[in-house]
């Protein structure tokens, strides 16, 4: 559904048009029917990538195809629904008028348009009184729901959402999450960026992590977290002197608790305990979360 290969994008700003490389050799493949999470810190290139996909930004080099068509071609947008980060709309319209406007732009009219609006609002739990109020009175959460509703009106094959959960309360987040899952069950491919990594972990089939314009990790959540290895937290009945700790084993803060960086370190520690008659009280394995990995990648990029 989405094919990005060796994508480069430079922004030029200021009087001297100083270049800044925003995307550096980005490559991504999103298969049909997937929910694809796109994560990274602010300014990493998430929105830039999304805007290239929707034809809002030109790019320097590389290959970008959406459903086999270049985003430079208007036809590619027939299959796309897009909701930008912090969506802004014509505030002199009501929510319903706005949806009618966008619905007509994707070729809907008459009863079909009204039915589709009702469906979209119900899916997002936005079929409330406020939908007939002017948009200038809307909260951020209401705006976000209307933004997603306008994106799905045309029943797109690919739904691109830039930070769809931002500005939503926990109920709103749950509603959007459920809407994403339901649309996906109906066969819609979803490509979305988010800061809320717990949501990304729970609903994404695959995830790409972008830091400083480069894709640093890509795969399923399990593949990404497994690739970083598993830590073992071991608690012994008596403390092990710091100088005697085997390689790859470090104190965890508590005198009787140590952390083994990987399987080999765990084996070295267990061997040490057996040799020295130290009883192991408890051992837990802990896989790093996406947040841990992202934090580590950001630190690496900063360094």
């Amino acid at each position: 559904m989405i094919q990005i290969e060796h994508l480069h994008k430079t922004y030029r700003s200021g009087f001297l048009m100083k270049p800044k490389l925003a995307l550096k050799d980005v490559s991504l493949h999103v298969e049909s029917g997937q929910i694809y999470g796109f994560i990274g810190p602010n300014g990493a290139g998430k929105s830039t990538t999304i805007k290239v996909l929707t034809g809002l930004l030109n790019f320097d080099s590389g290959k970008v195809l959406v459903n086999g068509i270049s985003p430079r071609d208007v036809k590619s947008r027939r299959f796309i629904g897009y909701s930008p980060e912090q969506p802004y709309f014509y505030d002199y319209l009501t929510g319903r008028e706005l949806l009618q406007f966008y619905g007509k732009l994707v070729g809907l009219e008459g009863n079909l348009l009204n039915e589709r609006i009702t469906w979209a609002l119900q899916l997002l739990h936005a079929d409330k009184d406020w939908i007939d109020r002017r948009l200038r009175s809307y909260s951020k959460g209401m705006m976000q729901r209307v933004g997603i509703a306008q994106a799905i009106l045309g029943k797109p094959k690919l739904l691109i959402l830039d930070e769809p959960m931002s500005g939503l309360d926990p109920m709103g987040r749950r509603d959007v999450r459920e809407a994403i899952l339901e649309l996906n069950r109906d066969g819609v491919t979803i490509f979305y960026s988010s800061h809320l990594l717990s949501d990304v972990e729970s609903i994404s089939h695959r995830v790409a992590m972008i830091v400083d314009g480069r894709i640093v990790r890509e795969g399923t959540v399990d593949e990404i977290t497994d690739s970083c290895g598993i830590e073992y937290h071991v608690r012994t009945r008596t403390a092990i002197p710091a100088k005697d700790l085997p390689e790859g084993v470090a104190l965890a803060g508590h005198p009787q608790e140590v952390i083994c960086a990987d399987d080999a370190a765990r084996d070295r520690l267990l061997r040490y305990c057996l040799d020295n008659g130290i009883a192991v009280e408890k051992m837990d394995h802990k896989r790093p979360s996406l947040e841990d990995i992202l934090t580590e990648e950001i630190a690496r990029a900063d360094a």
Partner: protein
Amino acid sequence: MQTLKHIGIIALNTFRESIRDKILYNIGLLAVGLALFSIVLGEWSVFDRAYVIKSTTLSVMSLSGLLISIFVGISLVQKEIQRRTVLTLLSKPISRATFIVGKYLGLLAVVAVHLALLTCIYYSILFLTNSEPTVSLLTAIYLIFWELAVVIAVALLFSSFSSTILSALFTLGVYFAGHLSNQLLEQIRFASRMGEMGDTSTALLEKLAVVIHAVFPGLYRYNVTSYVVHGLALPDMYLFWNTVYAIGYVGVFLAIASWWFSRRDFL
């Protein structure tokens, strides 16, 4: 077919947006006030009352239309970019040229409605003051409409790549150049015939005036107030050829605006 439909939808939305703009009402009220004031001017003037009312009201129509075309025209595209509504709009299956043409037609419709309302007021004033409300006056209003059609296209062109203030200044510049280019050329040729300037400077200035005359739209063609007020006939096919001329310029300006706009990045 689909493109025409999209243009219509965007034009309708632009019309709806513009008629809710406070600037429009301020300019409209000012125009109505000035048109009514033309009655007083007619009474005070040493000239023929009907002449004063007709020429003043036509000038008011032209000026108020110009203000709407420039002030609403330059903000049409900029507002979409600044408020970031352009992001959602251009992610739909519409080309950037469709967007530009839709915006243009929406504002043109606003100007048409503005002129239509003022025409009603204009004729009411002429009837009430018994000032010979002839049908030929519509010719002048028709040409004002096409003049404004060109000005809106200029405003859209500049606003597709520059800031609001610069766009307003550039558009005003084109407006004045378009009105004065003919006079400038005639004056230079006159001075040249009278031998008031040296040969080199005359040739250089004349070339410059010819370039200005050729490049800028000749908006002076659309001011026929003196003809219609005095009941003089316009040359044959004047309306037709000047309509074609305006459409040609509008086409070129919108094509450049669309080309430029399609190269823009929207952050």
